[in-house]
């Protein structure tokens, strides 16, 4: 399914580490164009953070890897330009904090232009928890460079020695005189490039970073004034709707649009397997789409949500044929240390299990939407996406035009969680706009979101572990079919390890999700560690610590255990469980307290200990941790896509339950601030241990299935 599409985003989907592929020529032109538009001021181009690591006295040549730029205008206002998108994770605020801090200007004098492909340098996308570790230092370095350039100019202007000057609140003072940033750049076009050795403030000197700054533009959210993509209008804009098969797949077989064409102002578009309508209002578009008689043929023999696990392991195909031939070869090389098979043969006890992970949906409350507008040969699309440049590329490919003629603008978006990496809705709006000769808005319905977006991959995980006579792990074999390689490596010290990810042919469209496969891999691993500790009669925390040398992981595990009151639940009769792990450079331990009524599992209390290096915005970090944990509750307790015969059978919010107020247990978050370590992204990792904490807690009250969601058997 979607074979071609899958190939194009495979790397990012599983690894989120594909190299940047943009052309510098374009960047420079854009850079100069911006400067042209802004007219005067100081413009500093920022290169990758790693430039600093190349050492002092690094190259001063033209930037070949511009990641962001900063402009100081004649009013002394500062604007940062970045391709990152604001999807609720609040980087519009935290990135502005980094700039304000280094430039010594009040936070309200800094704004960000984000994710407008005509105005910002290329960016891979907003995912992988990389904005804080990568983009914040880049902008900070650019701001620091701007500050130093301004101090140079001030020294000249004031005729005072550089060392005697003080930079504060957007002005530079010395020798009894002062000059504002605005005055220093007035009528000038100054450019700078961040040198490889650009000095950054030490963590101890942070004034704005490290504080809980209020969310930039927060007011526009409580007044409803903020315009998400579905709220945008353009002059002369029409409304589009795409015709869909009954299920998630199908080939357009018959098509009768006579009734729709007869409707006032309605245009019907048919292009291969694509069909859609355009109308003066969204309501008429809905009626017109309903008036088209279209039939779609659905292939036979598609897997269902019960047969999919055999399908992913290739067990539903003929035994002579190789399994998953199309996808095999990518990521399927095992990582091995020692000889696990031999160790298993010599072991005192072995523990094997097979864990099943279902597909789950992101359900961002803002559905996919796009407004497309053609002006001659130029296409502009407003859309909520985590990958503005990726969507630009999709549009350029779809309409066989150069990327320079496509502009993608991302309004601050109603969340994504990894679910908005692709731009099919943008292509749809652009196709309809092209046919209509007017701007067109397409807003997906919630059922469209479920059936035609993409899902977190389903997976099968097999673990074979072995222990010696003392109960120490001697072998660990871990095979993951389809859900992905993130977080697949065990952090525990085991002498003989084999780890393997087996890509498979997914019947449903699948892609990125908050935490990616780390959630599945952590669930299986931590549930298995818990099972082994239980079987050996060893305390689950103690058992883990015996196999852990990583101090950061030990620290969060011990912190969570302590805060949770391990090993006793706070109320008798409840179960207490714990899990820990590391992903994307940060460390997490989660403890859960659960109760059982008949077969119903209820989470009563959660304790999270988290460490992600130096904390930039403590309030924002807490927000991200709490949010990730709540999202994790859904996958742990009830989320699972069901499907059969080519259709998703619970594809709406009445049937697909996401966490609600009554599901959210009291939560205690312990943040370990490591000021001596670089900050790493925090939006994802806290999700990975929620399910195994709950699952192991539930085991105290009865046997549970080796599957997600957690349920008693």
């Amino acid at each position, binding site marked *: 399914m979607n074979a071609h599409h899958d190939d194009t985003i495979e790397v990012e989907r599983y690894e989120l580490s594909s190299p940047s592929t943009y052309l510098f020529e374009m960047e420079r032109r854009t850079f100069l164009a911006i400067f042209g538009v802004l007219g005067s001021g100081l413009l500093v181009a920022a290169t990758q953070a790693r430039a600093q690591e190349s050492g002092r006295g690094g190259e001063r040549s033209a930037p070949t890897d511009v990641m962001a730029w900063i402009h100081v205008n004649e009013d002394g206002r500062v604007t940062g330009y970045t391709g990152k998108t604001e*999807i*609720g*994770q*609040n980087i519009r605020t935290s990135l502005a904090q980094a700039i304000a801090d280094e430039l010594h200007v009040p936070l309200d004098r800094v704004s960000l232009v984000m994710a407008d492909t005509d105005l910002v340098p290329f960016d891979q996308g907003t995912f992988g928890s990389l904005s804080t570790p990568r983009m914040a230092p880049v902008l900070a370095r650019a701001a620091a460079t701007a500050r130093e350039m301004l101090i140079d100019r001030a020294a000249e202007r004031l005729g005072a020695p550089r060392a005697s000057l003080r930079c504060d609140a957007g002005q530079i003072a010395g020798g009894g005189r002062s000059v504002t940033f605005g005055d220093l750049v007035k009528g000038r076009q100054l450019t700078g490039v961040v040198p490889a050795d650009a000095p950054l403030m030490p963590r101890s000197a942070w004034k704005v970073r490290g504080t809980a700054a*209020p*969310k930039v533009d*927060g*007011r526009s*959210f*409580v*007044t*409803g*004034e*903020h*315009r*998400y993509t*579905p*709220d945008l*209008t353009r002059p002369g804009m029409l*409304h589009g709707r795409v015709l869909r098969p009954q299920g998630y797949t199908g080939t357009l077989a018959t098509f009768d649009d006579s009734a729709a064409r007869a409707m006032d102002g309605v245009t019907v578009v048919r292009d291969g397997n694509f069909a859609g309508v355009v109308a003066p*209002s*969204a*309501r008429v578009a809905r009626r017109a789409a309903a008036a088209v008689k279209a039939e779609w043929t659905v292939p036979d023999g598609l897997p269902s949500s019960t047969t999919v696990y055999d399908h992913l392991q290739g067990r539903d195909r003929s035994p002579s044929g190789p399994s998953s031939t199309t996808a095999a070869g990518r990521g399927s090389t095992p990582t091995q240390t020692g000889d696990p098979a031999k160790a298993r043969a010599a072991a005192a006890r072995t523990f094997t299990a097979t864990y099943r992970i279902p597909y789950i949906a992101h*359900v*961002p*409350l*803002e*559905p996919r939407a796009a407004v497309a507008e053609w002006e001659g040969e130029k296409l502009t699309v407003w859309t909520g996406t985590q990958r503005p440049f990726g969507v630009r590329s999709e549009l350029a490919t779809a309409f066989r035009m150069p990327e320079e003629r496509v502009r993608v603008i991302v309004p*601050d*978006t*109603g*969340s994504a*969680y990894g679910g908005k990496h692709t731009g099919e809705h943008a292509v749809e709006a652009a196709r309809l706009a092209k046919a209509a000769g007017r701007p067109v808005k397409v*807003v997906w*319905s*919630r059922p469209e979101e479920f059936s035609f977006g993409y899902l977190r991959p389903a997976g099968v995980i097999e673990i074979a572990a072995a222990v010696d006579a003392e109960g120490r792990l001697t072998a660990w074999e871990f095979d993951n079919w389809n859900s992905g390689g993130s977080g697949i490596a065990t952090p525990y010290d085991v002498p003989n390890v084999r780890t393997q990810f087996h890509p498979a042919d997914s019947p449903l469209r699948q892609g990125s999700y908050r935490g990616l496969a780390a959630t599945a891999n952590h669930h299986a691993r931590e549930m298995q560690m818990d099972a082994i500790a239980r079987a050996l009669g060893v305390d689950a925390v103690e058992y883990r610590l015996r196999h852990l040398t990583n101090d950061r992981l030990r620290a969060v595990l011990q912190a969570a255990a302590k805060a949770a009151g391990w090993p006793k639940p706070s109320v008798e009769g409840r179960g207490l469980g714990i899990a820990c792990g590391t992903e994307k450079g940060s460390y997490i331990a989660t403890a859960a307290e659960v109760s059982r009524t008949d077969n119903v599992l209820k989470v009563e209390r959660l304790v999270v200990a988290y460490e992600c290096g130096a904390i930039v915005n403590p*309030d924002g970090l807490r*927000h991200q941790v*709490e*949010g*990730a*944990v*709540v*999202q994790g509750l859904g996958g742990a307790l009830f989320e699972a896509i069901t499907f059969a015969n080519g259709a998703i059978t619970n594809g*709406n*919010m*009445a049937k697909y339950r*996401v*966490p*609600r*107020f*009554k599901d*959210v247990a009291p*939560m205690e978050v312990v943040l370990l601030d490591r000021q001596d370590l670089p900050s790493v992204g925090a939006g994802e990792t806290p999700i990975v241990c929620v399910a195994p904490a709950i699952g192991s807690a539930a085991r105290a009250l009865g046997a549970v299935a080796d599957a997600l969601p957690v349920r008693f058997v």
Partner: protein
Amino acid sequence: MPSYTLRINGKAHEVEAEADDTLLSVLRDDLDLTGARYGCGEGQCGSCTVLVDNRAMRSCVARVSAVAKAQIVTIEGLATNGTLHPVQQAFLEVEAFQCGYCTSGMVMATVALLRTNPSPTDADIARALDRNVCRCGTHARIVKAVRLAAERLRAATPSAGADGRLPPSPLGFGVPSGEPALPRAAQEAQR
């Protein structure tokens, strides 16, 4: 096409719509009042919540014909002369949102809750907002914001009666005495 006069945020609006068109579509598409968001279209997520005769209502499942005689208040009508409603102010101060998409609905549902229950317990809040989905997981802060708003509203209106009912709305749209007669669609949406 039939035409309706809708009373929204204290103003009358003439709109042409089919009887079964939803209030949400009229608000968003005809009147450009986009603060009520589309999230699910089936009354499940609460992003489209507005007040209809002071009761929280899912505008995505309310037929326009059923609310034609009602007083409708949307998020755009809460602030007065640029001063935020205490519930908005509390959400802003507590920063009870991440992406903000659910916020309009949360705020409107909270205004409705505090009108009938000025001193809600956490359990009352969870019950009242249970059908408003926050996908970003900001629940704890939303509860905090509701508590803060309740506190401030109580302080600002010491005359709240023993029945816990607040005096007429400071919004100036008039509050009918007693239990407002709810249109059927609104009652359905309440459930």
